[in-house]
């Protein structure tokens, strides 16, 4: 059985609560286990935070869409915006080893997404923007 859901909001901080509630409910409706649901929720939060902070910087917030599709064997979540192009493969590597006083505040979001998801795919949107697709296989050990 497939559970599908979609939401579109303005990519502003005021929308974050609605976006997180959406993904929590979608995970619950798809009967994800707690660990999988946390991984999906966290990855979506990291993507939404990045889009809200940087995607439309310097102009009015545009749309932020989340498409959720949960089946028996995997969950696929696509997060799309019309903001400035950003390929997550270009994200700088995180600093995981420096001493505490040299450790930067931030820069871990994409690292966590890659660690928590089984697949992360990126494609630019033809009319401008980005589409990141997250895949979490159910009962996998990622």
């Amino acid at each position, binding site marked *: 059985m497939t559970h599908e859901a979609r939401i579109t909001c303005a990519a502003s901080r005021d929308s974050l609560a609605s976006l997180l509630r959406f993904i929590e409910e979608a995970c619950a409706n798809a009967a994800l286990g707690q660990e999988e649901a946390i991984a999906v929720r966290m990855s979506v939060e990291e993507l939404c*935070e990045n889009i809200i902070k940087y995607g439309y910087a310097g102009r009015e917030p545009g749309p932020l869409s989340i498409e959720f599709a949960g089946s028996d064997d995997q969950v696929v979540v696509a997060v799309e915006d019309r903001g400035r192009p950003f390929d997550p493969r270009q994200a700088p590597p995180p600093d995981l080893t420096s001493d505490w006083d040299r450790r930067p505040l931030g820069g871990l979001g994409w690292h966590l997404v890659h660690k928590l998801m089984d697949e992360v795919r990126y494609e630019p949107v033809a009319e401008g923007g980005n589409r990141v697709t997250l895949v979490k296989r159910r009962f996998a050990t990622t």
Partner: protein
Amino acid sequence: MPMEVTAELLGHTTVVRVVGSVDGLTADTLTGALQSHVDEGRIRLVCDLSGVEYTSSAGLRALLGTLKAARQQGGDFRLAAVQPGVHRILELSGFTSILKLYGDVDTAVASFAE
């Protein structure tokens, strides 16, 4: 899940208890609460995370910022009762090598006397 932050003084150590999810909606509140203790000179801090099942990178920033602020003033910020899901995020983020973690609050508080 909303988040609540409370604090109590145990000897010379301040124990900050967090209950709920630490995410982009709540991390600023946690940062402010922790920073207020440091600002007032309470730099021997223990964060009781027994009631936290979720933290995103926003929460990690709050923890690292407090660690830096406390240590720069000669104190420390130590974690107690970290739950498995949060522990995994700390490990993936390389935080277990810079933060001191203890199994429970009493052990974390006692560690300041060592």
